[in-house]
């Protein structure tokens, strides 16, 4: 019962928080609200570096939210808002920096690492397969010899054990 109550409280709490942002930054259409939410989630606070501006209460994040709100209300596209804020604070405020010469390594490293890993796995698999194939492929001459050894060996061992008893 207590658990249910806590859950209910938590749920209403999060709904209230959602409603509070809507009240602080009232927007007419759901599309605008969606855009505002996306933008404030994707923009990074320069002062508190591991928070987006939606979560941050730093004065600078508040200023940025106000600016985003103003621009969204005036009908700016997401790209325009990003440009306006990057122009002031630098590429740093974007959680997803754009692809440019300076950020090539940032974007390329995961692909390079995955590619290298795949190459290594392929190499290991190919090599182990080649090894097993090599082990089984005896020449006819070798096979005959092996069979002969096995045949002559068998009576030998039984005979050996026989003499022992």
């Amino acid at each position: 019962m207590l658990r249910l109550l806590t859950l209910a409280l938590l749920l209403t709490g999060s709904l209230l928080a959602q409603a509070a942002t809507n009240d602080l930054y009232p927007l007419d259409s759901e599309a605008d609200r969606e855009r505002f939410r996306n933008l404030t989630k994707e923009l990074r606070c320069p002062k508190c570096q591991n928070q987006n501006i939606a979560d941050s209460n730093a004065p600078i994040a508040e200023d940025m939210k106000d600016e985003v709100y103003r621009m969204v209300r005036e009908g700016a596209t997401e790209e325009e808002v990003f440009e306006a804020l990057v122009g002031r604070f630098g590429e740093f405020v974007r959680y997803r920096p754009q692809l440019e010469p300076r950020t090539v390594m940032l974007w390329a490293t995961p692909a390079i690492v995955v590619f290298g890993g795949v190459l290594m796995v392929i190499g290991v698999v190919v090599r182990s397969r080649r090894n097993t194939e090599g082990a089984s492929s005896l020449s006819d001459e070798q096979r005959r010899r092996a069979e002969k050894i096995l045949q002559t060996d068998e009576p030998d061992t039984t005979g050996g054990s026989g003499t022992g008893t």
Partner: protein
Amino acid sequence: MKRLFLFIPVMLAITLGVVMYAGIGKDPMHLESALIGKPVPAFELAQLENPDVMLRKDIFNGQVSLLNVWGTWCPACRDEHPDLVWLAEEKGVPIVGLNYKDNRDQALQWLQSLGDPYTVNLFDPSGSLGFDLGVYGAPETYVVDAEGIVRYRHVGVVNEKVWYETLEPLIRKYSREG
């Protein structure tokens, strides 16, 4: 060929070492200003001492100056204040003050009791110019050249070391060019 593969872990370790070594001693809080090489954003702000005088960006024309963002609410600004006074009095550096998100009476009182190193002070209670400059933590000090182009931003306290190692060479460089 097989021997070469044995060196892969060593190569990886060396690459990782180089990358991480490059990061040692770098302050992650230090961000380069997006305005370097661009003109100071246009503004129209009242003078701190006199609300009737409106100031525009032409106050930067004619000489290389420092633009110092400060506020009475900012403890680090109090720390650097004596050094700014020293710069203005001993070195004759023109310092434009940007009184950021502050209260006029408190700011004037501060200047009266601690000394006034500024050639002119902009009063920006809403932080509009601060926002356009990308100010994210006072105190910040910008080097602005004689054409009003932002050349450098220093975030944090200005002291003797910062002056001799960073700001003075920059001011000298851009004064020569101008």
